[in-house]
Structures are given as structure tokens and as C-alpha cells.
């Protein structure tokens, strides 16, 4: 293969790589990305919620949230649309809790999570001082990097 042919091959490979990177990639909405995002967001929200309810403060890491997410229809576990996430975490009194959220994930990596179980209460909660506070865990939003 002479220098001219080598240059042509390199050019062809370059074009193929460019075409591949532009048009042949899979969706960036993956279980790993959703799980990492919802677990940390949920832990931070519980931290805020505990303080709003007037309970003794706890660090977000103390809730040890672990998320497992899948698409409800099964099949290809990737892409935007509806997802279900099971969150296993430690409550303020150290008991292990499991909650399930229904998610709607958009192509830009943002999602709305709505609680599917009844353990976490309704849209508002009563604080220790009797005031009504918004239940941050009832429905919340988050975003993650899709690049």
C-alpha cells in the first residue's frame, strides 16, 4: 500500500468514525445514570424534608439510598419515557425502607418522579409545630448528564 492509498484509507476511516459518532449512537438514558441521579436526589430531599418537619438533622449520606430502575414494559432497558425505580434506604430510625417511584424521563436527561407507594404520605405533611409543609418526596424532579 503506497502513501496515497494509506491517506485514502485514513480519510475513509475518519469519515466512518464521524458518521458513527453522529448517527449510530445509542440513547444516553440508561439505568446506571438514572439510578445514580435519583438515589442522590432522593437522599438530599429526605435531608431537607427532615429539617422542614422539625426532626433531628441527619446527613444525606446517612440515608444510604440504593436505587434499581427498569422500564415497566421490559425489553430494551434504555431510552426516554416511563421508568420504575425501587429505592431501598434507611429511615431516620435506622429501619430499612423500600419505596417505588414512577418516572417520566425526557431525552435531555430530566425526569419527574412520582411516588407509587403510600409509605411517604400525600402532597403535604404536618410538621412538629403543626404547620403544613410540602412533601418533597411525593413528587420531585431531577436531571443528569447525558453526554
Amino acid at each position, binding site marked *: 500500500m503506497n502513501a496515497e492509498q494509506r491517506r485514502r484509507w485514513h480519510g475513509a476511516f475518519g469519515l466512518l468514525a464521524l458518521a458513527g*459518532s*453522529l*448517527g*449510530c*449512537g*445509542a*440513547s*444516553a*438514558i440508561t439505568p446506571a445514570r438514572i439510578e445514580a*441521579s435519583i438515589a*442522590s*436526589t*432522593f*437522599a*438530599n*430531599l429526605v*435531608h*431537607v424534608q427532615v429539617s422542614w418537619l422539625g426532626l433531628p438533622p441527619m446527613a444525606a449520606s446517612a440515608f444510604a439510598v440504593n436505587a434499581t430502575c427498569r422500564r415497566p414494559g421490559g425489553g430494551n432497558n434504555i*431510552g*426516554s*419515557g416511563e421508568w420504575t425505580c425501587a429505592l431501598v434506604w434507611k429511615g431516620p430510625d435506622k429501619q430499612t425502607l423500600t419505596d417505588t417511584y414512577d418516572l417520566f424521563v*425526557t*431525552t*435531555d*436527561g*430530566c425526569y*419527574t418522579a412520582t411516588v407509587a407507594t403510600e409509605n411517604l404520605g400525600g402532597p403535604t405533611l404536618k410538621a412538629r409545630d403543626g404547620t403544613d409543609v*410540602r412533601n*418533597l418526596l411525593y*413528587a*420531585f*424532579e*431531577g*436531571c*443528569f*448528564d*447525558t*453526554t
Partner: protein
Amino acid sequence: MTIHGVRAVVRVERSKLAGQIKAQVVLAACVLGPFAFAAVIRLQSSLPEDTLFGRSVRQSGFAVPLVVLGFAALWALPVLTSVVGGDLFSAEDRYGTWTTLLTRSRSRGEFFVGKTLTALGFSLLAIIVLASSSIAAGTLVVGADPIVDLSGVLLAPAEALRRVVLAWASVLPPAFGFTGLAVLVSVVSRSSVAGIGLPVAIAMAMQLCALVDGPEPLRRSLITSAFGAWHGLWTEPHFYAPLVHGTIVSALYLVVCVVLACCVMQLRDIGR
């Protein structure tokens, strides 16, 4: 072409624009729209829950400019940024004033640069007015309370305000990209309807494309994706890649459109 000549064109275009009802109506809508939105939110029971931060609009006034930004990115920003750029060149065709203009002491290049800078300046002004009005509406009507970000962290008012300003600043590059597109359509089509309407139609088509799952690089190459790049500034830790990609893509749109428009303008046989 001289800076003095470009300045003279900008000065004339600015005074023409200041007298146009269209520009005044657009700026008035930018001032009043967010206050009307905040007032409606205060009065009605339902919330715009399908938009990011829509659930927080009654808890914190800083959610208001973010909800307005989310809504505006769909169609209002392409309209705001095309309304002047899409008309500035074609208006001369409509009134048949090119021949008069070009017999003055300013060159064709000076007219092009001056008019393009005026269009970009109006886009900048409209976004600054809309952002300021949204922040004022939120903090005055709802209150400057802390807000929970997109990672569940509670932000103090000063930090929330800083991030709201950054979020609005992040939409300037795609806004300028759309202005460049409007200038190109205006120069090529010589029609204000096309100059304003086509960029808005393109923005809507891109929004629809972005709803479909597809390769991430393809989605990132759509200029409308840059309107949502601010999401990364509201998470912990921040992610900047969409912002960087969006800014590069917007700059490419702007440069390509303006260069093409300039070539068409220079090669045009005016007077026939």
C-alpha cells in the same frame, strides 16, 4: 468598511427600531408577561407541574424565572430573537429603499454589519428585559425564599439568584444563533414573513426532533438543545458538557448563517 460607518448604521437602525410599534409591543410583553404569569399562579389552585420547577412556584419566587425560561425556550425565545433580525433586511426590500440607502456614504458591508449588530442587540435586550422582569415578578409576587435544586439540595436566596442569572445567560448563545438564522432567511427570501416565521418553524421542528430518542450527538447538534443546557447548573455537582456543546453549536449556526447572508448580500444585484 470603517467602525465609524458601522456605528452610524447602528445609530440609524436603533432610532428606526425605537419608533416601531412591533419592537415596543415585544418589549412590553417581556416586561408584563412574567408579572401576569406570577399573578395567575398566586390566584389559581393548579400548578404548571409538567415544567421543571413548576411544583415550586408557590414556595420560592426563584422558580418563576425558571418556569418562564422553560416555557419561553419552546417558542417565545425563537420569536423574540427573530422578530427584528427577520425583518431588518427584508423591510428595505418591502419599502424599496435599498437603492436609496446604497447611494449614501455607507458601504454595503457597513450596512450589513450595522443591521446584523442591531438585530443581535435587540435579541440581547429582549432577553435581558424578560429575565429581569421574571426575577422581579417571582421575588415580588411570590417571595425570595430558598429553593430546592434539581439534585434535591436547598439553595439560599443569594445562590439561587446567581444560578437564575446564569441560567438566563446560558440561553444567549442559542438566541444569537436564531438571530443569525433570521438574518439569513431575511436576506435570502427578502420576505419578513419568512424571516420571522421560518426560524420559529425550524425551532418547533427541532423541538419535535429532540423529543424522539436518538443518538445523543444528533440531539446536541440541534440549536434548541442549547436552550436546556442550564439544567446542568442546577444539579450537584454541576455538569457543563451540554453548555459547552450548546455554545459551540450556537456559535457555528451564527457564524455560518451570518457569513452566508453576507455573501448573498454582497453578490446581490440591487436595483433590479
